[in-house]
């Protein structure tokens, strides 16, 4: 066993930190996070150039990473910088395109082609068996009809990977974004998503039975969200620690108040637990235990994330209730991570299935 990150991963982490400090400092984040297309071309290109996308795929697929720890390294850095770029959408797509095995993955890995995975529908959240979008063949062409909802990264995407029922299976399709009715909006925690309406929209079949590769992609995505959350939690802990040592009330630094001290300690412990379970999931991604470990991690991240978000706000007091103070945005993002790719209860139920 070895608990030290490799030097390559340390380099990626450092490079990302520098890059994101240049491109998406928090004070100017509003422009990207809350204005369409919720992505800044310069940042995206810089991410591509430093290899942030290529790090998400194995060498065999043209990347130079693709292990759980590689994904975690990238997303932890994104979380630390509170970067609203839709890298998660690209990760999910890279995972699926790798499985397809054609050349499209190369364009995804350079970031030249931007993808979004359209899978969930209103009221079928995280429940792939209830997907209702239909694909049919007409004159040799495949046409898709249905609505995809809260599609992360869709506003900036050029192509969609779409899950739809097809000849009794759950299949994956490639669709040109220009052919789809798209309604984009910001998320409450920043970043963009869209409602997509497919109305006999032409599509290319990529995978006939997509369940297994989809599960692998969703596991990778959930792991990425866990790592993003860990990055956020580290920032919130450090910011709260500094605030406790700076802010005075009743003539003393509030960090002197034992009730807050003990709560801060409990918070710090839970953050270490969140880091550990994320590392465990990273180490097992793709294994037979992979899905269960990811669910363990996503559950704990949901539980600890809420604690950290709420306690960070509470220990700061009023200032963390304001838009101007970055803690509010970190807390919002951390909270809403539990709404993406399955929440704590859904993942707990998966763990409960094999006690």
């Amino acid at each position: 066993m070895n608990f030290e990150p490799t030097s390559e991963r340390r380099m990626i982490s450092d490079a990302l930190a520098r890059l994101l400090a240049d491109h998406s400092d928090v004070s100017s984040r509003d422009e990207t996070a809350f204005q369409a297309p919720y992505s800044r071309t310069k940042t995206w290109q810089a991410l591509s150039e430093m290899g942030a996308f290529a790090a998400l795929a194995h060498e065999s697929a043209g990347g130079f990473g693709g292990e759980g720890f590689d994904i975690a390294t990238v997303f932890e850095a994104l979380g630390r910088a509170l970067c609203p770029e839709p890298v998660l959408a690209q990760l999910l797509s890279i995972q699926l395109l790798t499985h397809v095995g054609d050349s499209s993955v190369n364009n995804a890995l350079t970031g030249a082609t931007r993808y979004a995975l359209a899978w969930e529908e209103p009221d079928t959240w995280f429940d792939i068996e209830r997907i209702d979008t239909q694909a049919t063949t007409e004159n040799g062409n495949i046409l898709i009809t249905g609505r995809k909802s809260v599609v992360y990264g869709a506003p900036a995407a050029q192509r969609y990977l779409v899950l739809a029922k097809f000849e009794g299976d759950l299949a994956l399709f490639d669709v040109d974004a220009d052919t789809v009715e798209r309604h984009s909006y910001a998320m409450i925690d920043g970043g963009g998503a869209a409602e997509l309406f497919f109305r006999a929209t032409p599509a290319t079949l990529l995978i006939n039975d997509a369940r297994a590769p989809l599960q692998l992609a969703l596991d990778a995505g959930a792991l990425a969200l866990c790592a993003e959350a860990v990055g956020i939690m580290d920032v919130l802990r450090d910011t709260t620690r500094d605030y406790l040592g700076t802010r005075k009330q009743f003539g003393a630094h509030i960090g002197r108040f034992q009730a807050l001290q003990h709560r801060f300690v409990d918070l710090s412990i839970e953050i270490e637990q969140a880091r550990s379970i994320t590392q465990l999931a990273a180490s097992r991604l793709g294994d037979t235990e992979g899905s269960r470990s990811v669910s363990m991690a996503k559950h704990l991240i949901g539980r600890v994330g809420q604690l950290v978000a709420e306690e960070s706000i509470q220990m700061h007091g009023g200032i963390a209730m304001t838009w101007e103070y970055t803690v509010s945005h970190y807390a919002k993002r951390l909270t809403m991570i539990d709404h993406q790719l399955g929440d704590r209860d859904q993942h707990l139920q998966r763990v409960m299935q094999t006690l």
Partner: protein
Amino acid sequence: MNFTFSEDERAFEAEVETFLRDKLPPEIAARTHRGEEIGKADTERWQAILSQKGWLAPTWPVEHGGADWDPVKHYLYDAAACRAGAPRTVPFGVNMLGPVLIAFGTPAQQQHYLPRILNGKDWWCQGYSEPGAGSDLASLRTRAEQDGDYYIINGQKTWTTLGQYANNIFCLVRTRASGKPQEGISFVLVDLDTPGVEMQPIKLIEGGHEVNEVFFTDARVPVANRVGEENKGWTIAKYLLGHERTGIAGVGLSTHALTRLKAVARQQTRNGKPLIEDPLFSSKIAEVEIDLAAMTITNLRMLTQSQGSPGPEASMLKIKGTVIHQTLNDLARRALGPAAAPFPAEALAANLALVEDTQARNAARYFNNRKLSIFGGSNEIQRNILSAMTLGNRR
């Protein structure tokens, strides 16, 4: 003990329900249910209706135009009003300044200001908190120096709720720099049109504008606008803290929030069944329902048993009441899954509603209501107060 409502209480409840059905404008109720800000015009419209009925100031004595309800009546009104979607009465004039003027004001102050609160001529806001002194009033720094019949006020107030609609503000200001920090504070009334008073909005975590900063730069305020003795503002502040108990537990609001939570849990599906049939989620609903049922009794019991003498009850009710309300907000957010995430204003404008419009703001409401345990004396401050009373914080 007898926990059934008396005939008198039942009749009162019926009267409240009839009144709300007849007089509450449906468009206002709809906005309340959606969780939108109500705005100045509609708030004033509704408060005028309440005032006409004599119910705007339920805790004031009748001779000042109040309704003098006991805690049970107050509870019954509150619950019915929340169910119906009546906006909350803005508390600063009615529930805060009013009782202060009745207890400490001169007859002239009472005669001038109390009717103006009731008839809506004045919208008051509160100038207590300052940057760096949220719950710690003793450390406030806004100072008032006397210059003949005027105070010259300099300093900054913050977290001034709905100040953007107000024409008046009551402030705690420092009138003496020496001595114990609590002892040099006075309570003064300031017309917001006074030159040297500026208000700026604060954008909150969820994007809304409900609080403000107020800047005082050589603002001249008549000494006659001071309430109570000079340097005794601390006494008034403490009086107010103890007096704010009615409604502090927010039982009416939470009861309605529980109803909304159950509604959304019936609408949403999980694993092909209504979310309310998911045992993990429904057990959380049941737990908070039980907490709230207990709180309904705790609230009435404490308010009834301690009428007059403010004790530790207010802090207890504040702490547990806000925790319950926040838990309800939390579950209502989580019930939506991914549909909680779209930024409400934009998502609704696009007319792509993923959920009923009364539920669309659940995430925003959750984030906004993190304030409940911070503002108005944080729950940590309340725990300090309580432990001083029960443990004596012995050394």
